[in-house]
């Protein structure tokens, strides 16, 4: 027991949890805790420029490291600014502890200055939240917060701490155990279900693995790979799962979904046994649900029982930790003998050869896909590992299609919520988690302008990232929908290539700025950005006409893939 203030107890708790870096912005109701930072801690604080940025940084940190991300904000607007990041973490199951200051206990409920009911506002988008009005509860609540964020299906939690609690004295001892009688996520798997899954796989003619972000969260990448190889199972991997099985693995048939490959969509949809692993049959993957893999039985592995049967009935549900479940399944399959589905493997491989991603470099402007391929190849030629982040939109889908991620946690993106502006702050968080890696954010011009103020954070906190701006001068994905589905009425989507001048803006923030107006300027700009040793923005002026294909229109069957028109790829 050590006598201290509540604010110091918060930092001692973070230290006890092994937190090495947090992201935040101070303000009135959280001032005592920032005073505790000034008194000293082993926890590094990264000062963001907007709380949404702090939240996404914490997410990027969590996704790149596998550890719990921590964001700190003040009450009122500080807390509401965190909401988008909390929602993003909720949708993508990213473990996050958000600590917000709250007005003094005696003012709670009075509409005091900068008072907002953040536990109420965030209720639908957190696993749990706590409003702390008694300093004695603080250590136990923080212990519980980290435990809930990281166990079971991971996700965000929020701890709202009244200002007077931060100022109150406490005999601090960090608890060893959590006291949460209602929180019992599964820790084991049902052996009978796994055995049934093994028999179904052995008997299937056209089995396919459909793996998602849960494989990364469940630290089950090695087990997935062992399973794929033990039974020669072709696999498709969702956007959130990218990297859980090496993109270069011969049995990895890439990404299904709205902008996934035709071969991945066909492989998934024409299978007779879908082995879903840590994934949730998102509408962006399934397309029209009644037409999704109509001939398939489903085995669904998930840590979250509420996901099983939510969208698609699972004939064989297996609820529990994926790491255990997949390892046990592989053992069971080895006992069954190598399954025979050579015809199927031949078929999916044929589709892969027939329907690759494609685009044409014709024309004077840089094609976005070429920009992404160029930075991919440059990164591959360097020694450092690369962690990629993206914003949301066309550039994100092209990044999914063209980047090659062979390592877990090397691709960080906003999947479920589709949060424009995620890329830059997530990259900063990823850099804090992976100082050994080069962190490259593939961003769009629309996304960039939503969180570009965090370039100041990257520059001043010495967390250098490379932003490759796929600048097509438009809200590109919206433009694409307007072109295809709204008779080319380009309503309020034109941003221009020129305003702002992104390279100058980067320079203004203390970063290096480069502009590539055509292919001839691209390679040197990217190399300069890679080698400048500080945060760099490469503004690549891209062809606004280029559309993201293949595409499964919303509500269509996912076998009905629209491919790039012949004239566009000739």
């Amino acid at each position, binding site marked *: 027991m050590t006598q201290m203030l509540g604010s110091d107890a918060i930092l001692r708790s973070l230290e006890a949890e092994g937190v090495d870096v947090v992201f935040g912005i101070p303000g009135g109701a959280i001032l005592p805790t920032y005073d505790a930072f000034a008194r000293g801690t082993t926890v590094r604080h990264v000062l963001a420029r907007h709380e949404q940025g702090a939240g996404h940084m914490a997410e990027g940190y969590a996704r790149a490291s596998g550890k719990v991300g921590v964001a700190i904000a003040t009450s009122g607007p500080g807390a509401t600014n965190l909401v988008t990041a909390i929602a993003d973490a909720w949708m993508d199951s990213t473990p996050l502890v958000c600590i917000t200051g709250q007005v003094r206990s005696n003012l709670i409920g009075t509409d005091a200055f900068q008072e907002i009911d953040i536990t109420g506002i965030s209720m639908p988008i957190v696993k*749990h939240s706590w409003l702390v009005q008694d300093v004695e509860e603080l250590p136990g609540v923080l212990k519980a917060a980290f435990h809930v964020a990281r166990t079971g299906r991971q996700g965000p939690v929020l701890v709202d701490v009244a200002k007077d609690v931060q100022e109150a004295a406490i005999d601090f001892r960090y608890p060893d155990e959590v006291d*949460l009688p*209602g929180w*019992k*996520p599964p820790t084991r798997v049902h052996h009978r279900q796994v055995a049934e899954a093994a028999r179904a796989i052995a008997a299937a003619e056209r089995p396919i693995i459909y793996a998602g972000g849960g494989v990364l969260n469940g630290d089950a990448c090695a087990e997935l790979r062992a399973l794929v190889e033990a039974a020669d199972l072709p696999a498709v991997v969702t956007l959130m799962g990218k990297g859980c099985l090496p993109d270069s693995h011969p049995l990895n048939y890439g990404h299904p979904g709205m902008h996934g490959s035709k071969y991945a969509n066909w492989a998934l949809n024409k299978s007779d046994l879908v082995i879903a692993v840590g994934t949730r049959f998102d509408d962006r993957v399934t397309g029209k649900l009644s037409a999704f893999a109509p001939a398939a039985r489903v085995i669904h592995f998930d840590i*979250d*029982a*509420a996901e099983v049967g939510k969208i698609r009935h699972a004939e064989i549900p297996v609820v529990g930790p994926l790491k255990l479940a997949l390892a046990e399944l592989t053992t069971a399959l080895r006992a069954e003998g190598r399954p025979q589905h050579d015809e199927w493997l031949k078929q999916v491989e044929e589709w892969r050869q027939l329907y690759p991603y494609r685009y044409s470099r014709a024309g004077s402007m840089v094609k976005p896909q070429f920009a992404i391929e160029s930075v991919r190849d440059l990164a591959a030629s360097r020694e450092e590992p690369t962690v990629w982040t993206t914003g949301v939109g066309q550039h994100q889908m092209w990044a999914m299609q063209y980047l090659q991620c062979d390592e877990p946690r090397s691709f960080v993106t906003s999947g479920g919520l589709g949060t424009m502006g995620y890329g830059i702050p997530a990259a900063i968080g990823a850099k804090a988690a992976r100082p050994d890696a080069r962190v490259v954010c593939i961003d769009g011009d629309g996304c960039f302008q939503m969180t570009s103020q965090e370039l100041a954070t990257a520059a001043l906190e010495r967390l250098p990232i490379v932003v490759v701006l796929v600048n097509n001068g438009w809200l590109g994905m919206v433009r694409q929908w307007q072109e295809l589905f709204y008779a080319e009425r380009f309503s309020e989507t034109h941003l221009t290539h020129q305003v702002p001048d992104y390279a100058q803006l980067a320079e203004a923030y203390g970063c290096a700025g480069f502009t590539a107006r055509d292919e001839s300027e691209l390679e040197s700009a990217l190399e300069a950005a890679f080698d400048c040793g500080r945060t760099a923005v490469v503004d690549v002026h891209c062809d606004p006409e280029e559309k993201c294909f293949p595409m499964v229109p919303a509500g269509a069957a996912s076998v009905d893939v629209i491919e790039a028109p012949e004239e566009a790829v000739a």
Partner: protein
Amino acid sequence: MTSHTLSVRMENKPGALARVSQLFSRRGYNIQSLAVGPTERPDISRLTLRVDCSEHSLEQIEKQIHKLVNVLRVTELVPEEAVERELALITVAVAPDKRAEVVSLAQAAGAAVADIGRDAITFELVGRPEEVEAFEELVRPFGVRELARTGRIGLRRPSSQPRGSNGRDRHLR
């Protein structure tokens, strides 16, 4: 859409009720009745909730309620396997010359007199929800001034089959 009764044992903590009810409101389901109160343990509350929703949604919501940190257990109460009761207070307009008639009618239906005023009587009735509804119909012709119902509370019958034997137990944790 059919009516279902859920029984939720949860920690007696601020926000626990809101976390449960929000799972219904986000889907646009209206909760017909909801009763929360203490259990045999002061730190634990029981919530009994009646809602109209599809079987598939209910299963989904039950699983999501299970995941709530404050929730210890959730079960669906199946009418034939549960004891369900409700308390109603009904104030009926009664002219002095009709008092005897109304009171005897009410007593025959199992209601008790809670208060008598100059031109109205408040009855209390504890019963199965159908009995409460029947009583409401019975006194309606006299003129119901005000009515308050607790919403049903329920417990599984000790005399019914043990848990898990009827396929109704959806404890997936």
